């Protein structure tokens, strides 16, 4: 147990360190001068003196090594610098927008799970039947359709054409439906295929034969016995897809004007707000390693066989 926790903390440290280093290098190589950008963001005329003053204020006159150490210190002490635009600590800006993104991600996850379970189980039950063929087609389509195009289609059909659902903003639960569907649908159809394959593989197991010999129908076995075994791959799917949700949310939030992290990072890119972009990547890194840790931990709870190790 101690080893388990230590291993993950080491990994977290490594990820944060490498991401921090990478983003530092990128900012060094990027064409814009942060001091000029910052002056522009605050509507100060960028005279030579003003730029010089700002450069020393931002610590840009220090040596590269000094700046790097300074940046690492900021990352690990948890301030992550100030946003050029709002002048507030990046970390509090990010936390302010986290709930909206989490809400979207969880809703997307819910839609994904729903599609995966319904489609996965029904295609496994009716193996090689009509339902199976439709499921196969959907999963092919699901992995080929770009998220943003799906978003447009959903928006056109359900809010422009029928006027059933709102297409913009975040006011009540109705606003959540379209973005969440856009986010979860494609991945759900793909994972349905994975679940189907896993369930069919489990059907070859001896315990299934034993149940069959007792006269239990194939459908009953699939739903009541095999599905329990499929819990492990489903947990893996949820864990890995969470990463996908966070990434996909950048596109979905832009389309549906959802006020979350994704939209914020796109705004920051347009404003050249470097500290926010840097902070976002570090933030994402920490989030994902944490999720991986939780998933690994759930494995141990679900499957006693893994605890022996």
């Amino acid at each position, binding site marked *: 147990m101690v080893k388990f926790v230590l291993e993950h903390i080491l990994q977290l440290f490594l990820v944060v360190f490498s991401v921090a280093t990478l983003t530092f290098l990128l900012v060094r190589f990027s064409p814009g001068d942060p001091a000029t950008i910052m002056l522009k963001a605050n509507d100060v005329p960028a005279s030579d003196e003003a730029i010089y003053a700002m450069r020393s204020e931002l610590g840009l006159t220090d040596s590269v090594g000094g700046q790097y150490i300074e940046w690492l210190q900021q990352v690990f002490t948890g301030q992550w610098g100030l946003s050029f635009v709002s002048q507030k600590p990046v970390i509090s800006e990010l936390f302010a927008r986290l709930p909206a993104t989490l809400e979207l991600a969880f809703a997307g996850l819910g839609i994904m799970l729903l599609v995966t379970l319904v489609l996965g189980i029904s295609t496994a039950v009716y193996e090689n039947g009509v339902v199976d063929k439709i499921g196969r087609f959907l999963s092919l389509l699901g992995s080929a359709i770009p998220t943003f195009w799906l978003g447009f289609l959903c928006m*056109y059909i359900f809010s422009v054409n029928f006027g059933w659902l709102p297409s913009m903003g975040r006011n009540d639960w109705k606003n959540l439906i379209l973005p969440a569907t856009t986010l979860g649908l494609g991945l759900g159809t793909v994972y349905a295929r994975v679940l189907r394959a896993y369930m069919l593989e489990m059907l070859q197991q001896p315990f299934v034969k034993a149940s069959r010999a007792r006269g239990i129908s194939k459908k009953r076995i699939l739903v009541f016995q095999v599905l329990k075994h499929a819990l492990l791959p489903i947990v893996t799917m949820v864990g890995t897809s969470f990463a996908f949700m966070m990434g996909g949310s950048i596109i979905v939030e832009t389309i549906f004007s959802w006020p979350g992290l994704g939209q914020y990072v796109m705004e920051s*890119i347009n404003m050249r707000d470097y500290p926010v972009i840097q902070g976002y990547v570090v933030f994402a890194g920490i989030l994902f390693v944490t999720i991986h840790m939780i998933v690994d931990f759930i494995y141990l709870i679900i499957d006693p066989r893994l605890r022996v190790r």
Partner: protein
Amino acid sequence: MKLKRWKQVNVGLLVGLGILLSISLIGLFAPWIAPHDPLAVNLAARLQTPGWAYPFGTDHLGRCILSRIIYGIRISVTSAMIIMFFTMLISVPIALLTGYVRGRTDHMIMRIIDSTLAIPDIVLTIAIVGLLGPSLVNMIFAIVVVRWASYVRFIRSLVVKITQEEYIFSAKMAGNSNFRIVKRYILPQIGMPIIVFSALDMGKIVLNIAGLSFLGLGSQPPTPEWGAMLNDATDYFQVTPHVMLFPGLAIVLFVLACQLVSEKLGKYDITAGKEM
């Protein structure tokens, strides 16, 4: 039975390859095939629905959407190929080195790779382009930087598996140099799986390029690119949905063809292996 199976495999493969080949040819001969200049603005004919003069209609500046999609092939497919080339150039040598030599270098490189893979592709790519500034070149650079790690991981796993085969041991016993073993016995073996893997990935890369261009991080206007066209469509599709319909369909068709080829090639490879 066997014959039927072979036929099935080949039909799907041929359809997929046929689509990809025709898309590439259309892109190659774009100036002769496209009915209009993809950049020609004609405000008198803006947002026209599909008709004889403009088969796929026109966009908000009166540019021919069909011609823009045709010229868009050049941007998307060429960028995807450049990305693939550089990814291979970086990842194959590293994978061979780490997978064949193993040891401490291998351990260190894999640690670095694991930590890059801990962050989802899109997030890292967007951040890199965002920091370097949006442009086609920076986008290509960013996608390569993010992609090579998963390629190394995949190719390395193939190399490791082959290195443990007995014929590699006998080749070593017979006094072959490491270089010769890699060239003669390992490279030919990993070729096919890499092709299958990269065929599927080609589709993903095109999706990636379109997504980034949609966000305004890839190719810049007025360059005709599928994702960028969808970005242009954002303000107009509610009234004239054709401005977003056709570029999206182009992306879906290309990605589906890549998937088909990869899937069928994968099967082909397996059956071929079984019959040997």
